[in-house]
């Protein structure tokens, strides 16, 4: 019996009078690495934000960890969010906090921390190769380093659902390889559910188990690469380069 | 320009503010000179751009200015209310409100509102242009940014603030008259008679002269801060902040000097 970490059931979203997500059906199997691909403006980022509970569908339902999400129930929303980690496309690092404070931020919001926060921060920074930089300002870091800090912050609380929006955008090939390797390691160590939205098809193909193609606000394909090869939809073949 | 000392001590901040102030005044004077030079070489600026700026700048700020002026007029009447109540000199209400509005409160508050609405907007626009390299692009095309961008805005602001102050002054008087009746309980006729009786022409004109200088000040200040933006979104925000603050100081200082010189 398949377990789903997240399900978006028949959800539509209207923003500024235009329909940006149209009756989307998306199911994310637990413990897998999912790829979310599609042209710019197709709705990938919107879907990621919806999975992160930052966007509420105008119609339809969002299920996370087998529960329907009620956006008005703030307590349960808090509970759910403590199990989600997000790496934003523009990183969204807090520029008024140090590297260490940024990575420790999700842990500080937990009212009963189980372990010493600085140890968890150290471990997280170590796994992205940035241990020792706790006191540095964000602005002192290069783009690639900042991205790694953002990933560390997303993963530090060991969330069950980990969302990456364009983890490798604008980075050189070597750094990109390291980042995708990092994502693989994080998933293997924690057995969480990972979603990566990216244009880097070559790397996604090597890393991800399940692929979802988004086009004009609709999910037109969900499945493995083999299933994609047998698809009759040309767009799927183009997006996944099969 | 060397970076001033990074110090958080109170005296250090004080000193740094002074240095920055002098640097800013110097830079703005240079900008003003460049504007004048551009103005003299009349063929340099784009009349269409001037007119569009004028329209954008003036019409959009009219509602806010009018509303502000009305309430300011009412406020002046209420503020004089205590004094009038104490001395029983109800007939002075019109004169007091009229003088205050025309010579001081009208131009200054309308000027402040103008700097917040139009000056800030101008700084933000120019700042965004700098950050997105549009100003550099103009230079590369051989177009002088001062003549093309700055001069039309400078002229538009002076003209518009002049008109807005004139209109605003009248609405302020109107607001005052309503407050006179509604809050102070004094007949509006006494108010208006008081105004007409006193010869406020000199005050009215002084107020308009102030408006011209305020418009120029807001123009230079907002353009200066807009042009020297660095650092993306945060830089633009900071520039708008600096622009409004500097405009306010300029307005108060210029206001004082014009009043003293005029009377």
């Amino acid at each position, binding site marked *: 019996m398949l377990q789903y970490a997240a399900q978006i059931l028949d959800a539509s979203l209207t923003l500024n009078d235009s329909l940006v997500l149209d009756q989307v059906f998306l199911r994310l199997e637990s413990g897998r690495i999912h790829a979310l691909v599609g042209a710019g403006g197709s709705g990938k980022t919107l879907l990621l934000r919806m999975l992160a509970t930052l966007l509420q569908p105008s119609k339809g339902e969002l299920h996370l960890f087998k529960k329907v999400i009620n956006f008005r129930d703030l307590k349960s929303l808090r509970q759910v969010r403590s199990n989600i980690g997000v790496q934003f496309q523009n990183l969204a690092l807090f520029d008024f906090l140090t590297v260490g404070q940024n990575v420790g931020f999700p842990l500080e919001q937990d009212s009963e921390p189980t372990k010493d926060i600085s140890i968890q921060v150290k471990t997280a920074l170590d796994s992205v190769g940035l241990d020792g930089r706790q006191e540095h300002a964000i602005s002192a870091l290069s783009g690639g380093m900042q991205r790694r800090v953002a990933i560390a912050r997303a993963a530090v609380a060991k969330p069950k659902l980990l969302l990456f929006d364009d983890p490798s955008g604008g980075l050189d090939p070597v750094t990109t390889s390291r980042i995708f390797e990092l994502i693989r390691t994080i998933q293997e160590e924690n057995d969480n559910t990972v979603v990566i939205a990216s244009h880097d098809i070559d790397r996604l193909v090597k890393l991800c188990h399940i692929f979802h193609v988004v086009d004009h606000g609709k999910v037109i394909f969900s499945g493995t690469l083999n299933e994609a090869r047998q698809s009759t939809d040309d767009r799927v073949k183009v997006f996944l380069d099969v | 320009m060397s970076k001033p000392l990074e110090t958080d001590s109170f005296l250090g901040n004080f000193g740094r503010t002074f240095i920055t102030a002098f640097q800013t005044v110097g830079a703005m004077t240079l900008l003003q000179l460049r504007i004048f030079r551009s103005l003299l070489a009349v063929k340099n600026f784009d009349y269409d751009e001037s007119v569009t700026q004028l329209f954008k700048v003036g019409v959009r700020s009219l509602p806010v200015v009018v509303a502000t002026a009305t309430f300011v007029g009412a406020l002046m009447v209420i503020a004089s209310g205590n004094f009038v109540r104490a001395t029983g000199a109800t007939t002075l209400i019109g004169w007091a409100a009229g*003088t205050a509005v025309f010579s001081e409160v009208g131009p200054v508050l309308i000027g402040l509102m103008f700097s917040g609405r139009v000056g800030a907007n101008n700084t933000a626009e120019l700042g965004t242009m700098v950050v997105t390299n549009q100003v550099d692009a103009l230079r590369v095309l051989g177009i002088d940014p001062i003549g093309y961008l700055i001069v039309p805005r400078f002229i538009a602001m002076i003209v518009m603030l002049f008109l807005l102050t004139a209109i605003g002054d009248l609405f302020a008087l109107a607001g005052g008259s309503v407050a006179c009746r509604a809050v102070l309980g004094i007949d509006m006729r006494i108010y208006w008679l008081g105004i007409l009786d006193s010869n406020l022409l000199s005050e009215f004109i002084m107020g308009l002269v102030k408006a011209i200088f305020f418009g120029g000040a807001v123009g230079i200040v907002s353009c200066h801060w807009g042009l020297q933006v660095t650092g993306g979104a945060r830089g633009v925000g900071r520039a708008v902040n600096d622009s409004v603050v500097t405009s306010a100081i300029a307005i108060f200082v210029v206001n004082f000097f014009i009043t003293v010189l005029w009377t």
Partner: protein
Amino acid sequence: MKRLWETIRSPFQLLGRTIALLPSARKSHRKILESMYSIGNQSLVFIALTLAFLGLILVYQGAYQALKVLPDLTPVGPVFIGTMVRVFGPTIVALMLATRVGAGIAAETGSMTVTDQIEAMKVTNADPVEYLVVPRFIASIIMMIVLWVFGVLVAVAAGTLIGTLRFGIQLRTFLSLSGTTMSDVWVALFKCVIFGAAIPILAADSGFKATGGSEGVGWATTNAVVHSLFTVILLDFLISSIAYRFGW
């Protein structure tokens, strides 16, 4: 019309949430103090300059006009001080604060909004209102009162200079508190609290609505300044009217 309603409604919503979260402020002493220091630091010189010139102009105009209708200049000092405390002090200091601090808060929250830092806070279970708005709210109210006192002192000092030197009024005649009543002080304090509360709320509200990069931040800052300036004047009018009617 719908937009106007939304423009009025959202600051009130933010105000409601901020007040509801006030109890939690007990654990953010440091942030409140930092905010107070920052406000003071930013505004001190600015307020000193503007209020000094305000004092100069008020006394200058006041004395000049008084010479036309009054036998001597004895009332000028007391009336000036009373009006400064009750009317011009709170209002002008608030306008300056709206300009300096309001724009600053809008720029900060605006740039955080367009770079998704606010969303990052939400998803890590930090309430942006609790984290950003509440400390600044409290700090702003306290500093508004402090700066009002400071501003009045500066203006009176400047006014005294010009009153004595230019118009030859006796120092003791000028520096009289006979034109200032306790109710003047109470009304002024009340205004300070209201203004000090309104400015950061309007500024943060504008900041949270920013969209689209540096242009959005610029827009948010402009919006904040204009709304704050107008709201201060409007609130001043309302408070002054009510105070007058009740003879306060």
